[in-house]
Structure formats: structure tokens, C-alpha cells
């Protein structure tokens, strides 16, 4: 069953696509910046062992990349709320959730230089289709 907002039928398909793109881009940017922040900080378990919990929290809260990442994640959240106000939940939830899995893998390869091998690509595609089935 799809849940339609009152204005759902009047949305231009390109505008709808732009809303979905905004969610996916903001979410992927937020995830990648947060991951980059945590990589630059280092292993939190080691930091906690040497400097205690306060040291670990300070290490995270003094990293500008972390705040940039959280800002984009917040932007993704509000983009989702905005899209839900104009599009059906049955479209927005599966499309954004499954697309984000793949865009994160692509962004992780090119921006974080992660070794996204065949195994991880296969997993990303399987999870993408799986999330679509679950949420749709």
C-alpha cells in the first residue's frame, strides 16, 4: 500500500527526482565525511585506553570534519521530511534507502580510497535490492 500526500499527484517527475537526489547526495556526503573524520581521529578504543572516555569524546568533538558530516546528515533528514511532504512514502523510503547503499560504496571507493572489491560490490547490490524489497 502506498501512502500518498495530498499534493503527491501534482509533483513534476523531475522535481520528484531532484528531491530524491537531494536526500541521496546529502546522506552520502554526510556518511563519507563522518567516516573520514573517524579515520583521521584514529581508533577510539586505543584513544580511550590511553586518555579515557573524556579523551575519546574530546577527540571526536574537536574534529571539524565530524561536524561537517553531522550537518550533512541533518540536511539529509530534513530533505527526507520535505520529500515525504510531497511524494509517497512507498516511493521515497525504498528509493532513497537502496540508492544510498550503492552511492556510499562508490563514494567510499573514490573519496575514502577504500578497497571496494568484488565482494563488497556484490554485497552492496544485494543489500540494495534487499532493502528495496523490505521497505517497498
Amino acid at each position: 500500500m502506498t501512502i500518498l500526500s495530498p499534493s503527491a499527484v501534482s509533483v513534476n517527475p523531475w522535481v520528484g527526482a531532484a528531491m530524491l537526489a537531494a536526500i541521496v547526495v546529502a546522506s552520502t556526503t554526510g556518511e563519507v565525511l563522518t567516516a573520514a573524520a573517524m579515520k583521521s581521529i584514529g581508533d577510539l578504543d586505543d584513544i580511550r585506553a590511553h586518555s579515557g572516555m573524556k579523551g575519546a569524546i574530546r577527540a571526536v568533538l574537536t574534529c571539524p570534519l565530524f561536524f561537517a558530516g553531522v550537518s550533512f546528515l541533518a540536511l539529509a533528514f530534513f530533505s527526507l521530511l520535505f520529500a515525504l511532504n510531497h511524494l509517497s512514502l512507498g516511493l521515497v523510503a525504498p528509493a532513497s534507502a537502496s540508492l544510498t547503499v550503492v552511492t556510499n560504496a562508490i563514494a567510499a571507493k573514490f573519496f575514502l580510497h577504500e578497497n571496494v572489491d568484488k565482494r563488497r560490490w556484490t554485497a552492496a547490490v544485494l543489500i540494495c535490492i534487499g532493502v528495496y524489497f523490505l521497505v517497498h
Partner: protein
Amino acid sequence: MGQAKLSVGQWMILGLVAVCAPLGDACLSRGMAAMPQIDLAHPLSLIGAVFTPWIAGGIALLICFFASYLTALSWADLTFVLPATAFGNMIVELLSKFWLKEEVSLERWIGVLLITVGVGFVAQGPARTELPNNSVTAAVPMEEEKAR
């Protein structure tokens, strides 16, 4: 690629990532469903909602999720940690079926199966890509330098 084996504690952190997010969302959903309708004219009633048991519990679980997620990202790749968050969807389906006794459709079981296979693929591989100038090993000196 290095660090193929994770410690028991690190697997537990990934388990917390997978479990806390869906449980937190479920608690928030249950708490908000029990609240009277909130409109934009009375936004302060949202503050009162924060102190109800289900919503407070949901927020605590989501804080736990975010702390675990950040910890996991500090020693594992994003493409290794994200499947753990997807695994949470599977936990929700299993809870729906066996705890809440809800009907789970064939499509949803197919989704559960695909996610399980996908997570299995990633879990067999190494957790982290080792880069030439990886800062993980330099993390503690950096922290100590900040403390000075």
C-alpha cells in the same frame, strides 16, 4: 587490505550498531503513536514527549547506536560498517514475525535473505583498507599531543 580478523569486542560493537538503531526507531514509533496528536501550533508539547518512557528509551538507544557507529568507523571501512546497519532491517523483520506475531510477506523474506547473503559476503573479508599514510597507528600520539 589488513586487519582481517576483528576482536570479540569489535564484533560486539557492530552488533550494537545493528541492534540499537532498529530498536530505537521502534521505541520512538511506539512512544509517538501513544501520544495525542501534536501540531505546529504547540511545538513545546514535543519537549514533554521526550520524557515519556518509550521515547526516552528510544533516544538512549539511538545515542548508543551513534556512539557504536562512530567507534566502528574508527577501525573499519564505511563499506564494512554500512552492511551492519542494513542488518538491522532484518532484525526488525524477525522481531515483527516472532515477537509481535505480525504477518511478514514473501517479498520481505526475500529482502531478509538478500541482506543476509550481502552481509555474509562483507563479513568474510577484511574490515579495513590499509593506506600508506593511515592515521590509525598515529592516533594515540596525536591524542597525547593534543593533551599536551
